């Protein structure tokens, strides 16, 4: 039985006999399942969704809990991890159309109705198309000429060159620039938030100041007079009061346990929420709607 199935699903590299028939059959089979789901009575729909949700989670749960062969640390489900991950990313990738459709709809509508700001929609569409086209050309035929050379003005431009222009010149630089905006914001946020207006704000400020002093030259200079070693060669207990050591102690002895406490709560919350989703126990508008 298993053998027949394996044989049926075996890859057919040379597109041998029945390849196209099997393609059609596969499509037909899946559409038949979808049709059957659609024909199922309305009140069964919640059950169907719960079933598929459970199925989705069951693989990883079973793969984790099923006892393994001690030599390989694998069980009979382990070899399929790549397949499951592949299926999820392929099916998930089909959803990109959802995003692209809604965006293109919005921007073409702006453009067609000449709404205020339609120029920006035009810019968006031009760069979107350019990136898509030259990106794909770069993947398939990077060397093909896009702009022929005009002697004295510019050299020939191939798809790879244009992709580099858009990707390196545009995308990565714009990304870094957006990231760099945070430097400004962190300064103004520090100025505004670190006030002695409450105990909590004061604690926030003191800890931040200690760490800041501990990480720049003029901060460490303040306490560089405390030598780590005494004259007799033994360690100097007062060296613990060097600012960088206080900062380090703060990170290790205060920040680490606090983060751990948060982590316990967060991961238990994650466990509980995951269990509710997996077993379809979740509540809320989305989950209680009549289908």
């Amino acid at each position: 039985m298993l053998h027949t199935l394996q044989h049926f699903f075996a890859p057919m590299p040379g597109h041998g006999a029945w390849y196209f028939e099997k393609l059609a059959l596969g499509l037909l089979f899946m559409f038949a399942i979808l049709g059957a789901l659609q024909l199922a009575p309305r009140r069964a729909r919640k059950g169907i969704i719960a079933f598929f949700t459970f199925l989705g989670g069951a693989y990883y749960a079973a793969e984790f809990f099923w006892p393994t062969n001690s030599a390989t640390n694998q069980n009979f489900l382990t070899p399929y991890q790549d397949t499951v991950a592949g299926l999820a990313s392929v099916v998930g990738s089909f959803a990109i159309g959802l995003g692209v459709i809604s965006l293109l709809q919005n921007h073409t509508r702006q453009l067609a109705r000449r709404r205020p700001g339609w120029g920006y929609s035009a810019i968006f569409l031009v760069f979107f198309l350019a990136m898509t086209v030259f990106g794909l050309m770069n993947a398939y035929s990077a060397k093909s000429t896009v702009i022929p050379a005009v002697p004295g003005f510019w050299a020939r431009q191939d798809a790879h060159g244009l992709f580099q222009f858009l990707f390196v010149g545009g995308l990565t630089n714009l990304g870094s620039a957006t990231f760099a905006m945070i430097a400004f914001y962190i300064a103004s946020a520090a100025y505004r938030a670190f006030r002695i207006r409450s105990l909590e704000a004061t604690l926030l400020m003191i800890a931040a100041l200690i760490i800041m002093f501990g990480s720049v030259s003029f901060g460490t200079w303040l306490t560089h007079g405390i030598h780590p070693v005494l004259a007799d060669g033994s360690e100097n207990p007062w060296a613990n009061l060097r600012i960088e050591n206080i900062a380090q102690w703060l990170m290790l002895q205060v920040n680490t346990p606090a983060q751990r406490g948060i982590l316990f709560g967060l991961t238990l919350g994650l466990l509980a929420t995951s269990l509710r989703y997996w077993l379809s126990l979740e509540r809320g508008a989305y989950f209680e709607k009549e289908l």
Partner: protein
Amino acid sequence: MEYIRHLFNPILLFGALGTMAILSLVFKENRFYRVFEHVFLGLALGYDLEFTWTTILRPLFWDAMVRDGQWAWVMTVPVGLMFYGIYTQRFTWMSRVVFGIFFGLNAGAVFQDFAGRVVPQVTKSFLPSKSLIPPPPIPGDPHALLHQISFVLNNFLFLGIVVSVLVYFLFAFEQKNKAVLRTAQIGRWVLMFAFGAIFGSTIMTRMALLIDRMYFIFHDWLRLVKG
């Protein structure tokens, strides 16, 4: 002449103009920013599309199905189509089936995550040396007593912080009990102190990025800065 040509190097010019446009937002929203925001969004969406095709769909789906003859991949197409049910009244519910599969996939991975990520943190809270009784002194240590005292104090502090933070995050036990209430309050103070430390230690990396952007403009592009 060579310098002018360098200034108009398309990749550098694009990057420099874009950088200045994006950074201008911090002062005031303006057209220059708006133009490059839309350039950025357009490029990013195009790249998403291209990236999804070249790194996921082409190798895992198209090449596998067409070149390697793994015909069964065709069966993913109808499943993917279920997403688009949200555009119709009749098939909307179908999208929930495939959303549900994804909810499940995410939820099912939680057991391994919990065992692998959390349990080690539990054991690290007492191992290897979070003992509340100090180990015997190392012979010949001139500060033996000091080391023992700091060992015990540090470990008590560590434990106290973990406990008070956890107590702060208890929701169901009515915090009318004075001891519980006070511990939770201490937990909140400790949290604030820890958050301050995180804030302080993030500043350097963020500033380094801005310094790097300035280096890009004034060294890579304008060549006004040497070195």
